[in-house]
């Protein structure tokens, strides 16, 4: 009798296993990413009159418009740089194109304000190449667009390069019979990679719009700074800050709609899954000038890092001083980022897989994760304090675990979207066949989906880890005492700390990011080995 009941329960459990997995992921998503918004809604209600007055102010809407325009300009510049470079690095016979691509792309894994600091050492009044005019330009809207455009352009480059590498070879070969290589690139490769271009534009726009560190450093007024001011001013007004963040919700929703419209379920290659070994297209006469252009672009990308290195080398005390100033911050950042990336990958596997297979409810979770990604981190930070600073949750709030929660809340979309893109490229037949032979959901997930998309999941982990490591805005509001990650430590030391130490700490961040990426590359190669 008992065995029969157990068998029935097991059968029912197995039947609803996917729903339970998805519900578990949804619970974490709601607790981490959505609950911090519920407290703010109460605060908005409490500060109703001030909030309404604030939203009625033309200054607020003008500031939002200004931020939208600046973000558009950053996106345009990133596309201008990234589109041709993506094609060059992806499919053209540029010498050393992989090395140039790596050099160009690396800065996108660093906190943008570190690169702004590097540009300051380069173009500031007393910078290596600086003077009156360069400093004036750097500390202006032009400087902001330049720094963020150059910093975020590698996102476009890399997504476009991977996109064009994945374009169906037969299309390209047919076109090459009647057209020159550059025409093939502009008329076949780029249109075929349009979902990747759309995704890159959306990601760049979202990152530019939510960026706080660079505009504050370059003294340019932007909307997130206004939200931050409501939280950092004397009359602590979280309700007003949350009210101020509300106009960003429709903006985030628009980005989401655009993503669904232009990217969504399009099957395009990511992670080189469909990139076969094809000969690059010959550039012929254009090879020399375009190689020079690509080289210059790569040099420009790494120039701020070089400037930081030069500034750090001019300080006294050397490496020991820098390590002494870093204290536990590098370890804090890496531990929290690694744990958060693991959680993000796990949720990404469940929700991303469900989204790719169009399971009920998955698209809502997917959308919520994207909304959490594009909403202001400062609001999320205060919401997290309200949710987690309780007697029962001190093991979370008082420790590095709160950083893990914050990172997961903000960057879970990275895992979901990467895994969804990866899964959507493989047919569902294998999973259906396994189900027909009685394999329940967990078995299919771990024995079929995970091995098939191991590279996708690893890439999700790597990307999430790097996003967490470069984060500043989320962590700065609630990092545990003595538990600040290196980005926060650099930010709090930046204004008054010795310049060479700050530059040295920035280089330490560069080194840590390189190490994580190096480990990731090693893992990819290891997975690829037969």
């Amino acid at each position: 009798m008992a065995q029969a009941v157990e068998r029935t329960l097991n059968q029912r459990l197995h039947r609803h296993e996917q729903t339970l997995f998805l519900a578990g992921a949804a619970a974490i998503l709601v607790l981490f990413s959505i609950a911090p918004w519920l407290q703010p809604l109460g605060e908005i209600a409490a500060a109703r009159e001030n909030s309404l007055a604030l939203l009625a102010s033309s200054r607020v809407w003008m500031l939002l418009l200004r931020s939208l325009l600046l973000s558009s300009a950053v996106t345009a510049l990133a596309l201008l740089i990234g589109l041709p470079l993506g094609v060059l690095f992806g499919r053209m016979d540029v010498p050393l194109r992989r090395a140039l691509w790596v050099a160009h792309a690396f800065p996108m894994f660093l906190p943008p304000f570190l690169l702004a600091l590097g540009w300051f050492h380069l173009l500031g009044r007393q910078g290596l190449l600086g003077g009156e005019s360069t400093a004036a330009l750097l500390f202006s809207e032009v400087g902001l667009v330049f720094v963020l455009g150059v910093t975020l352009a590698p996102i476009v480059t890399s997504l476009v390069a991977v996109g064009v590498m994945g374009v169906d070879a037969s299309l390209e070969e047919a076109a090459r019979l009647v057209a020159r290589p550059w025409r093939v690139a502009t008329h076949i490769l780029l249109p075929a990679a349009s979902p990747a271009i759309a995704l890159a534009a959306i990601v760049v726009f979202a990152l530019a719009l939510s960026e706080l560190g660079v505009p504050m450093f370059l003294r340019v007024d932007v909307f997130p700074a206004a939200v931050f001011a409501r939280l950092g001013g004397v009359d602590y007004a979280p309700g007003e800050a949350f009210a101020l963040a509300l106009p960003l919700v429709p903006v985030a929703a628009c980005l989401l709609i655009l993503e669904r419209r232009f990217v969504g379920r399009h099957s395009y290659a990511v992670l080189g899954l469909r990139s076969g070994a094809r000969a690059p297209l010959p550039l012929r006469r254009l090879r020399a000038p375009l190689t020079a252009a690509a080289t210059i672009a790569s040099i420009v990308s790494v120039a701020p890092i070089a400037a930081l290195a030069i500034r750090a080398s001019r300080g006294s005390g050397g490496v020991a001083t820098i390590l002494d100033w870093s204290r536990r911050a590098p370890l804090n950042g890496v531990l929290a980022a690694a744990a958060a990336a693991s959680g993000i990958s796990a949720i990404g596997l469940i929700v991303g897989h469900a989204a790719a297979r169009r399971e009920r409810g998955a698209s809502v979770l997917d959308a919520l994760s994207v909304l959490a990604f594009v909403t202001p981190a400062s609001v999320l930070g205060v919401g997290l304090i309200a949710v987690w600073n309780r007697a029962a949750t001190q093991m979370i709030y008082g420790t590095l675990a709160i950083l893990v929660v914050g990172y997961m809340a903000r960057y879970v979309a990275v895992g979901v979207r990467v895994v969804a893109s990866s899964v959507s490229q493989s047919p569902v037949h294998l999973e259906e066949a396994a189900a027909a032979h009685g394999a329940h959901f967990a078995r299919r997930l771990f024995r079929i989906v995970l091995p098939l998309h191991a590279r996708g999941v690893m890439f999700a982990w790597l990307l999430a880890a790097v996003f967490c490591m470069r984060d500043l805005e989320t962590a700065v509001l609630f990092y545990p005492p003595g538990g600040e990650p290196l980005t926060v430590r650099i930010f709090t030391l930046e204004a008054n700390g010795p310049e060479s130490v700050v530059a040295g700490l920035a280089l330490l961040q560069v080194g840590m990011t390189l190490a994580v990426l190096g480990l990731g590359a090693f893992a990819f190669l290891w997975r690829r080995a037969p």
Partner: protein
Amino acid sequence: MPGPVRPYLTHWIGLALALLFVSMLSCTKRKNEVVVYTSVDQVFSEPVFRAFEREAGIEVRAVFDTEETKSTGVLNRLIAESDHPQADVFWSGDPVRPFLLIKRGLVEPYLSPAVSGLPAGMRAADGTWTGFAARARVLLVNRGKVPSGETPRSIRDLADPRWRGQTSIANPLFGTTTMHVAALFAAWGEERARAFMNDIKANDVRVASSNGEVKRLVAAGEVAFGLTDTDDAHEALGEGAPVEVIYPDQDGMGALVMPTTAVLLRRGPHGEAGKKLVDYLVGPEAERMMAESAAHMPLRAGVPTPANVRSVSDIRTMEVDYARVASEMERIQPWLRQWSGL
């Protein structure tokens, strides 16, 4: 990868991550520690904490402010966390922010035995706050931009049309500039203070993100002079910038002096260790360290005043009631936000 190893890979990864998470939870909670939130620059406050760690054998876990939200970022975090306080001590860069905590009942009065030698006017009789190591608000003047006969002597010169577009102050929503503006409202009254602020705005004053940024603008010659703190001015002198430090209004209302303040917080998780840290902060050693490293003006007679900084007793200081300045500071915030355009 050899075949037999791969099936166990996920288990190893899982185990490693579990250990990682447990180590994260355990490595940051210890008994022999004290938690301090501070708006004093990290570069100066951290060496003091380290010296305390060495002397008391108590680990200090600190939260520091960012330059842009100086004096208010951690203060607001203290308020946000007030249901379950995380901090034992607040070391404020100025004497008025603690009143915002006192008003909310977040402060535990503590009369430290280490206050001997500190002037009575620089600490609360009930022990809610204790001031030490002070700064003053000064005009930092670029000698290359300002002819010697035209050196500004008063903060009113910020509104002088002669210096249109040539002056700078930090954002008055944050840091010591908020306190300074509030002190002017308390000293001059609403109408006069508003008129002054509107005048300097009409005079195209450059609103920098911080006092450190004001220093950079003046030192680089982007503006002729700016209003900043003595520690920033001292830093500019140390960097060899062509600047002169003017203590303003020496023939009038005097310069605003702001001691840093130590406050013991109510229901802090490590109360006794918190008291020990307060004792150390208000003692002569911390004041000496702040004088040497951060050019703060010692309030004790026995601690030497740093070079390039004048002693508090040598200058005419603005007469201020810090409690009143604190309430003015809160009251004028909506207007200040309008002024700042945020």
